[in-house]
């Protein structure tokens, strides 16, 4: 590029620097940072909404017997808690991070499809208003669990079509976000930023985006069949008309298993960014990380029926799904060992993001091990639908996905706001969260193995102590998150100025650390120098 054209573009660009003013800025924005912020704030709000529902559940389970809510409302809470946490908190938060970070990491000015980006965010608030409104309808919200299994879910009143349409809207929103990410990464990379130079966060998101495009439509199709079964006389899942409710389970989990990886793969990317920075070493085994992520993505499509071992599968099916599921432990193990090797002999420091990253590695691995236990179909007959399952997926989703989101927030918050967050409060948040999350979920392994079923508001008295512990942990965990919200608020309002590199030596770990903190409204209006890219680890 000659100097003359260079200056031309610059002069031409000057009029649209900086955001518009007022509320309409957020409604009409096509800027990747604004949309990222909107996604992240939505994720945080929904995290508190879903969390409040979790506390209703834990309050009811504090002691045996029925105390505060009736069983039907309890079931609505478990259903909505899950739907909101999965689709309202974790997925939008990851989409927010993708919007903020991907253009900065690959040296692009913005996302490839900015107007579609605006639309994919603004569908969300409407979807969640619709979903929450079902609580006030005749017969209440859907109460059949987040899996929405028929025939039980077909007993839902007026809430069913609203729940189904919410799923449709959320599906459209995620598919658009996923397409945007794929197009951005494939077509907008700066010269010199080859695929095997991409930061792992970008790689994991690309694979996640492919999973989203492949499975969200299947879920949309399955819930459409629920809708037509209930209102239009079809019999997809109705035995009387020649259908089979088990078909729904297959369709759901064909979506559902890739979905749980959609919730965890971006976390792997985040952890793979943070651990090298605070170990002051390049990531160990970059290429193997990319291949491991891709294999996890591929394997996720062929293991779905391990969620349905008790449904009456032929023996060959049970064996196949057992072995295929165990296979996943191999690429996941590669990742965990790569993280450990990255820390090995590193000059480590333990700022809040690193604390969360290390806690992620330890606690996610524990969730992984219980997953391995369940992959064995004869053993799973004992675990199925008990609190052991609840403990397992909360270990991979809370100290897994949610801890990765905490880590990412602390890691990039100084970059976003230009201010360092309060390290003391961050550490306090970390310790309260980590201790309470274990008090909350660890005892659930024990009651689960002893046979306490999930999704039941009452339980036998021998489970009382562990459930009381679990509830105490849940409440401490819940209220600790107010510290998190306050730390974010404080960093937005002010604080010690952050340098562009923020963390010592971070410049070698990603292009985002070469932009000032906070970064300009449009990230890389001129592609970053190729020498910058070749110097990255």
């Amino acid at each position: 590029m000659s100097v003359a054209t260079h200056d031309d573009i610059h002069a031409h660009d000057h009029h649209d620097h900086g955001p518009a003013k007022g509320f309409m800025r957020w409604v009409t924005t096509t800027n990747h940072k604004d949309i990222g912020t909107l996604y992240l704030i939505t994720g945080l709000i929904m995290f508190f909404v879903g969390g409040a529902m979790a506390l209703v559940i834990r309050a009811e389970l504090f002691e045996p017997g029925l105390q505060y809510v009736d069983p039907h409302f309890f079931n609505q809470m478990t259903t909505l808690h899950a739907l909101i946490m999965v689709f309202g908190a974790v997925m939008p938060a990851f989409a927010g991070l993708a919007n903020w970070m991907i253009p900065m990491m690959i040296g692009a000015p913005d996302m490839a499809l900015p107007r579609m980006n605006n639309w994919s965010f603004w569908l969300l608030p409407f979807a969640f208003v619709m979903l929450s409104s079902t609580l006030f309808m005749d017969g209440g919200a859907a109460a059949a669990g987040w899996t929405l299994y028929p025939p039980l879910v077909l007993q839902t009143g007026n809430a069913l079509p609203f729940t189904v349409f919410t799923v449709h809207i959320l599906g459209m929103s995620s598919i658009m976000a996923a397409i945007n990410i794929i197009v951005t990464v494939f077509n907008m990379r700066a010269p010199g930023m080859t695929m095997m130079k991409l930061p792992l966060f970008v790689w994991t998101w690309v694979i996640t985006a492919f999973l989203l495009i492949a499975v969200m439509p299947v879920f949309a199709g399955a819930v459409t069949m629920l809708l037509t079964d209930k209102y239009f006389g079809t019999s997809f899942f109705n035995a009387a008309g020649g259908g089979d409710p088990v078909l729904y389970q297959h369709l759901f989990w064909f979506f559902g298993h890739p979905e749980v990886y959609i919730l965890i793969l971006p976390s792997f990317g985040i952890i793979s960014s943070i651990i090298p920075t605070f170990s002051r070493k390049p990531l160990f085994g970059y290429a193997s990380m990319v291949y491991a992520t891709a294999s996890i993505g591929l394997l996720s499509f062929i293991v779905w029926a391990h969620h349905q071992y008790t449904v009456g599968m032929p023996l060959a099916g049970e064996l196949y799904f057992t072995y295929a599921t165990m296979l996943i432990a191999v690429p996941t193990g590669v990742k965990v060992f790569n993280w450990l090797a990255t820390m090995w002999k590193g000059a480590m420091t333990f700022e809040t993001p690193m604390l969360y990253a290390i806690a992620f590695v330890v606690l996610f691995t524990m969730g992984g091990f219980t997953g391995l236990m369940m992959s064995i179909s004869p053993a799973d007959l004992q675990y199925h639908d008990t609190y052991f399952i609840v403990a397992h997926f909360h270990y991979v989703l809370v100290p897994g996905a949610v801890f990765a989101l905490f880590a990412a927030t602390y890691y990039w918050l100084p970059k976003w706001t230009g201010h360092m967050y309060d390290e003391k409060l961050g550490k306090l948040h970390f310790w309260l969260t980590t201790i309470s999350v274990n008090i909350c979920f660890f005892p659930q392994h024990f009651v689960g193995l002893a046979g306490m079923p999930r999704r039941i508001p009452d339980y036998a008295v021998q489970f009382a102590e562990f459930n009381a512990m679990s509830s105490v942990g849940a409440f401490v965990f819940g209220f600790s998150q107010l510290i998190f919200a306050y730390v974010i608020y404080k960093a937005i309002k002010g604080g010690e100025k952050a340098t562009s590199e923020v963390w010592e030596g971070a410049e070698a770990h990603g292009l985002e650390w070469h932009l000032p903190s906070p970064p300009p409204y449009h990230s890389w209006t001129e592609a970053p120098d190729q020498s910058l890219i070749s110097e990255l680890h």
Partner: protein
Amino acid sequence: MDDKELHKANARLVWRMVVIALLMFGLGFAIAPYYDAVCNYFGISGRVKEATAEQALKVDESREISLEFVTVVNGQMPLRFRAETGKLKIHPGQYYTVNFYAENTSDKKLVGRAIPSISPAWTSSFLKKAECFCFSEQEFEPHKERKMPVRFVVDPTIQADTKEMTLSYTFFDINEKTQTIKN
């Protein structure tokens, strides 16, 4: 890449992704008949839909299988449904007839359909029915009881260690369904 080229490349990639999404949506629906075919082929999910003609099989007097009958009425359907016996000792290869009785306890005509299920699932392909009320819709006049015979045989090639089987029928109310279709 200049702006125009980039725009074109973006549009191409977007359409490819949209096509994948649409195909996956279609796949969800395409799986339904495929799933049926697989279940029929393996004889799982209790699918015995058609009568098999009576044939002379070698009766294996040395073996005895205990066959249990379970009757279930789905939802709120006003039907009293029972089998004449709860349990029968049978020899593989021999034909038996068991009567089922269902009484409409309401003042309205009922149309129902019984769906069979056999467990353990892998035995279902060995239970062959020459006659069954489950092959067609059943109509019940108000407050009338009907006798519905099932004639069946257990194929003597069934695994030697089979000691117990359960045949269950669930009656579904399809009044609403037939009305929707007629309308």
